[in-house]
C-alpha cells in the first residue's frame, strides 16, 4: 500500500515537473500592526492574505483596464499622497458625472467591519464591486474586466500565482483588491512617535490633545471637545453611525436609505481621524474645505433634529449650549493636534504606490 502511494506521488511530481508548471504555493503575507489596535480584524476565511495576492491586488488597484474605456483606476480617486482620497467634494468617474458622496480615505481597513459612509457592505470584497461597476465610477461589468485581463500577457500568470489557476474572474479580482487594501495600515504618525517617546509635540498640540480627550463640564469649569467619545482609541474611530448636526432636513438621508428607520436619518459613519489633515474636503458630502470649518461646525453650528446624536446634545463648554463653544485658540490647538495624526511613512510607503509609474 505504501509503495502504491509512493508511485502515485512520484508520478504527480514528475508530471508537474514535465509540464513546466510551478506548483501553487503562495506565501502567507504577515501583517504588522501595533498590539494596541487589537486583533478584531476582518479577513474572510476564503481570502487569506498572501504575498502573491497582495501584489496582484496592488497592480489591480492601479489598473485602468478595470474601468470602461480604460480611463481610470481605483487609484484615481484614492491617491496615496492624500491618504487615498482625491481632494474633491465628489469624485467623477468614467462618465464625468459626480458621485453621490465624498471618496473615503483607505486607511486601517483591516479592522473595519462594514464599509461605505452608510456601512452597507459587510466586507471589502463586496465593497469593491460597487466602485468597479457603478456607472458614475469605473462603470464596467466585472465579467468584462475579467475578460480584458484574461487576454493580457501580464495577468494570467499573476492570478495563477495568487489563486492557483490562471482563470480570471470578478470574484478573484475583488479578492485580490481586498487583500491589498487590508495592508494599508497607518500606525507611524508623529502622535504614535510621541507615545513611544520619539517625538515631542509643541505646547499647542498638547493642549489640543487634552481638549480632544476631555468631555466639557462647564459646571465644573472643565473645558473639552469630547472628540474621543466617537473618535477615540488607537485607531481614532469607533465603528458608529451618527447624525452630527449638519442639517435639520438632510438632502442625503444616509443610513436611513438602507434601513428605512427614522432614527437613522442623516446618520453616517464616524471616520478615522488618522491622516485627517490630508483628506479635505470633509463630511460625507465634502461640504467643509478645511479643518477650521469642521471645528467651526462642532463649535458653533450643531443643528438639532430628532436623529441628532445624543453625544452632541447639550454637550458644550457653555452651560445650556447646543454646540461645543470652543474659543478660536482652542480650535487651533485641536487642529495642531490633528496634524500629529499625519503619517508620512504611510503616504510614502513604496509598497502602496503605483507600480506602473
Amino acid at each position: 500500500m505504501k509503495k502504491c502511494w509512493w508511485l502515485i506521488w512520484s508520478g504527480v511530481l514528475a508530471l508537474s515537473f514535465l509540464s513546466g508548471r510551478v506548483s501553487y504555493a503562495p506565501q502567507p503575507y504577515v501583517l504588522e500592526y501595533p498590539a494596541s489596535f487589537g486583533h478584531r480584524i476582518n479577513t474572510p476565511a476564503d481570502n487569506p492574505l498572501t504575498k502573491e495576492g497582495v501584489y496582484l491586488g496592488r497592480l489591480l488597484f492601479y489598473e485602468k483596464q478595470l474601468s470602461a474605456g480604460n480611463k481610470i483606476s481605483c487609484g484615481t480617486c484614492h491617491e496615496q499622497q492624500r491618504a487615498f482620497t482625491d481632494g474633491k467634494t465628489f469624485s467623477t468617474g468614467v462618465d464625468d458625472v459626480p458621485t453621490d458622496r465624498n471618496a473615503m480615505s483607505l486607511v486601517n481597513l483591516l479592522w473595519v467591519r462594514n464599509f461605505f459612509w452608510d456601512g452597507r457592505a459587510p466586507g471589502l470584497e463586496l465593497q469593491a464591486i460597487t466602485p468597479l461597476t457603478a456607472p458614475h465610477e469605473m462603470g464596467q461589468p466585472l465579467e468584462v474586466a475579467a475578460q480584458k485581463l484574461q487576454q493580457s500577457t501580464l495577468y494570467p500568470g499573476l492570478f495563477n500565482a495568487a489563486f492557483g489557476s490562471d482563470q480570471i474572474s470578478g470574484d478573484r479580482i475583488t479578492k485580490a483588491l481586498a487583500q491589498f487594501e487590508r495592508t494599508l495600515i497607518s500606525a507611524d504618525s508623529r502622535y504614535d512617535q510621541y507615545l513611544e517617546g520619539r517625538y515631542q509635540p509643541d505646547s499647542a498640540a498638547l493642549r489640543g490633545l487634552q481638549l480632544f480627550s476631555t468631555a466639557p463640564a462647564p459646571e465644573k469649569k472643565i473645558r473639552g471637545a469630547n472628540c474621543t467619545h466617537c473618535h477615540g482609541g488607537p485607531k481614532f474611530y469607533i465603528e458608529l453611525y451618527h447624525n452630527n448636526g449638519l442639517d435639520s432636513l438632510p438632502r442625503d438621508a444616509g443610513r436611513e436609505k438602507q434601513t428605512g428607520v427614522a432614527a437613522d436619518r442623516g446618520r453616517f459613519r464616524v471616520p478615522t481621524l488618522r491622516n485627517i489633515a490630508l483628506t479635505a474636503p470633509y463630511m460625507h458630502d465634502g461640504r467643509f474645505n478645511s479643518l477650521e470649518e469642521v471645528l467651526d461646525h462642532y463649535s458653533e453650528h450643531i443643528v438639532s433634529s430628532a436623529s441628532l446624536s445624543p453625544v452632541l446634545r447639550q454637550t458644550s463648554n457653555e452651560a445650556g449650549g447646543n454646540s461645543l463653544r470652543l474659543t478660536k485658540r482652542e480650535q487651533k490647538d485641536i487642529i495642531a493636534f490633528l496634524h500629529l495624526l499625519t503619517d508620512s511613512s504611510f503616504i510614502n510607503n513604496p509598497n502602496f504606490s503605483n507600480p506602473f509609474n
Partner: protein
Amino acid sequence: MLYKLAAGLLISAFMATTAFGQTISVEGEVTTPLKLSVADIAKMKKTEVTAADRDGKTHRYSGVPVTDILQQAGVTLGAQLRGENMAKYLLVKSGDGYEVLFSLAELDAAFTDRVVILADQVDGKPLPDGKGPFRIVVPGEKKPARWIWEVTTMTVRFAKD
C-alpha cells in the same frame, strides 16, 4: 451579473436585519429566537430601578428585566447557568453600531441582586429622542458606558477561546 446579484442579495439581507429598528432581536445560543416589538415588550412585567446617569442625577427607570427576555428566549439561566454555560456572554447592539457585553452570570438572579433592565421610561416619561425606544440601565455601575441606548439586538454566544 452574478456578482451584482450576490451583492444585491447580501445587501438586501443586511437591510432586512436592520430594517426593523423598532424591534429587538434575541438570537444566538437561544432555544427560541425572538423579534420583540414595542407592543410585545409592553405586555411584559415591568420593574422599576433607581440609578444615576452620566449627568450625576438619580432617575427612576422603568422597564423589563433583561433576564425575563433571555428566559423567554430559552437562554441557560438559573439552575442551567453552570459548567460550560459559564463561558457564555450577552452582546447588546445599538442602532448606531455601539456594542456592549455582559457575562450571563452578571445578569442572573442566582448570582446577583442587581437587576439590569431594558428601560422604556425615565421618570415616568418615554426615553428622549436618540436614546429610545429601549435602553439598558445597569443600577450601581459607576460609569454608564454599558447603558447602551437604541437597543436593536441581543445576542448570546459562547466565548471562543
